[in-house]
């Protein structure tokens, strides 16, 4: 059997995750297209990409809940595609949605999952005490989880996902919709797990969170487009700077901005336009020429601010450098879909 995209030798069973040529097709659509990567044990691994890029599909194959079309995937040394049951007892999974039972209480949810993993009464008592304390839910055991606010729900979900002390934990955008303070508290909990030797496989939208990871991989349209440590990734994008242009009609403004000679790249980001240029110190002059170009085309209210690259900006730059030769590629489409989120100032 030939495996498309298979590179080098057979996967190494030693890492927490080892993937070669992993592919998933849904009919004619290829959601994950021959990806390869390794996640060493004990690492915090960031898996990044816009919505619909294949992140969740990849996670579902790695957690054994979705069959792969082709390729190899070893999780904790076991072939997860052939024997998902051997892996599922040893991994945990936390979705970006709150996937505990909303019409059950905190206690009932814990008891359900403890039972599913076959914890003894003694183990359950220990884990329950630990999770309640960690999630700050002591005394609220009999509350329905639907009535908890988002931060508490997230921590309870984390506690439940780790109730069986997994060696590897998958977290799919675990902090989406959580305020910055709660987000930081949540990451403290993740570090605690990492310090105990748990391997973490995290997807996120926040650049500041991505920089907490040991290793990053970017996936776009089912393919891995970049891999490396946060410093390496940022290094590739660091030669570029970004100006955020706020204007009443961003679609029309984009066409004008694209024609300004210094602009390397421009794309819609939420209700603004991001203009990318080389960081050579001419920031002010560049901003002024942008404003002038827009004014001359009749855009009255224009404001231009320099912003730190978000994950999407880094991402767009990675993708566009990869696709520089391909004319079919339009950055605009990604800029539109993936709404960048910025840290609260």
């Amino acid at each position, binding site marked *: 059997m030939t495996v498309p995209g298979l590179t080098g030798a057979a996967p190494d069973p030693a890492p927490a995750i080892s993937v070669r040529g992993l592919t998933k097709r*849904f009919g004619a659509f290829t959601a994950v297209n021959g990806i390869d990567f390794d996640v060493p044990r004990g690492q915090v691994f960031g898996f990044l990409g816009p919505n619909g890029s294949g992140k969740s599909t990849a996670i*579902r194959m790695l*957690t*054994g*809940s*979705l*069959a792969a079309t082709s390729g190899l995937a070893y999780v904790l040394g076991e072939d997860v595609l052939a024997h998902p*049951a051997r892996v*599922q*007892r040893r*991994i*945990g*999974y936390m*979705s970006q*949605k*709150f*996937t*505990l*039972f*909303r*019409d*059950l209480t905190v206690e*009932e949810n814990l008891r*359900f*999952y403890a*039972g*599913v*993993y*076959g914890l003894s009464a003694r183990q359950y008592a220990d884990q329950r005490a630990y999770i309640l304390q960690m999630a700050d839910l002591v005394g609220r055991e009999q509350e*329905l989880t639907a009535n908890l606010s988002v931060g508490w729900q997230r921590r309870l979900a984390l506690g439940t996902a780790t109730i069986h002390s997994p060696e590897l934990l*998958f977290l799919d955008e675990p902090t989406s919709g959580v305020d910055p303070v709660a987000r930081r508290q949540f990451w403290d909990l993740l570090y605690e797990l990492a310090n105990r030797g748990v391997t973490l496989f995290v997807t996120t939208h926040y650049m500041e969170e991505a920089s907490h990871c040991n290793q990053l991989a970017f996936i776009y349209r089912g393919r891995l487009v970049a891999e490396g440590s946060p410093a390496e990734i940022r290094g590739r994008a660091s030669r570029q700077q970004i100006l955020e242009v706020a204007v009443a009609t961003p679609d029309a403004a984009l066409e004008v901005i694209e024609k300004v000679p210094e602009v390397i790249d421009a794309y819609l980001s939420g209700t603004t336009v991001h203009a990318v240029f080389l960081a050579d110190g001419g920031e002010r002059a560049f901003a002024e020429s942008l404003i002038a170009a827009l004014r001359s085309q009749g855009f009255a209210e224009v404001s231009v601010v320099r912003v730190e690259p978000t994950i999407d900006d880094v991402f767009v730059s990675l993708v566009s450098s990869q696709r520089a030769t391909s004319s079919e590629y339009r950055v605009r489409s990604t800029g539109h879909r993936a709404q960048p989120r910025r840290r609260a100032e």
Partner: protein
Amino acid sequence: MSLRRIRLIIWKEFLQLRRDPLLLRLILIMPIVQLIFFGYVVSADVRNLATALVDLDKSPTSRQLAASFSSSSYFTIEAYLQSETELKPLMNRGDVQVAIVIPEGTQARLESGEIAPVGIVVDGSDSRTAAVSSGYAAQTVARFNADRIVEQGLALSSPGIDARVRVLFNPSLRTVNTMIPGLIAAILMLSVMAIMSQAVVRERESGTLEQMFVTPITRGEYLIGKVTPYVLLAVLQMSLVALVGIFWFQVPFHGTFAAVAAGLGLFMLTVIGLGLLVSLAAHTRQQAQQTVLFIMLPMMLLSGFIFPIESMPAALVPVTYVMPLTWAVLLLRGVFVKGVGFSALVPELLVLAAFAILIFGAAVMATRRRLSE
């Protein structure tokens, strides 16, 4: 397959049901409301009754009498029998609903100026059909007598044929006696299908399904754990209807419990399968709800549960036979009212088994495939 995990899913399912008191109340009140509704309110017109003719006289008069039955739109003579003993098996199987028994010597009696009795045997297991058909039979005989008087120029008071109606199986012709067996099957379908389809879609929508499938819970364990509580609830509902029917409405139960259990078991697999298929096809709970209505309404109307199949337009009659509910209703009426045993129910049981294998099998296969997408 782990019994512990199945038990956990059942436990969780019951907890969730308990948190939804409205649903629980509906499950228990709905059958009673339907019992009253369908038991008393519905009635219908009947045409083209399958009729057997037992002509022991074999005379011109008897042929004339038979012709006046077959020329009316109410009766279709489907069987010509040589003796009355052949009749009972036909009625047991539901092949005919009415029989006309013309005794030997009918013509001779009429010619000698005596009253000639003719037997009309009616299948009472569907009381509305029975009541209507015995009325039609009496009318047909009266018209025959009137025609004969006119044709032969007899005195108006001359004796003629006397129709003696005998009702088999449900002599009192009470509607509840036929409604309650049908209702048991209908309620099984309503509640299992409606709740099953909702339950799985809901777990897919909320993501709890996704969470459970990264744990050691297998698809099989999930399915069994998910289905069992609703089967138990359905059994509770059916028992409630049966008990209220037997003790309050005084519906007779003549048959064997085993036949009921076998038939309902097969029918239950079928409706669980239908519910699952709906929940797999639907992406939202609203879609599931609409789809269930779309399937259920024709099933209720065309199964003979509410309106007798005999009263339907001929073009629709074949459709009634592809409704699983039709066969469940037939079977239950046979057991309750006629008290027939397994041998007379073989066709119904075979058809129900075929539906169960086909629909439940398809649902299990689709579930395995769909849940791993």
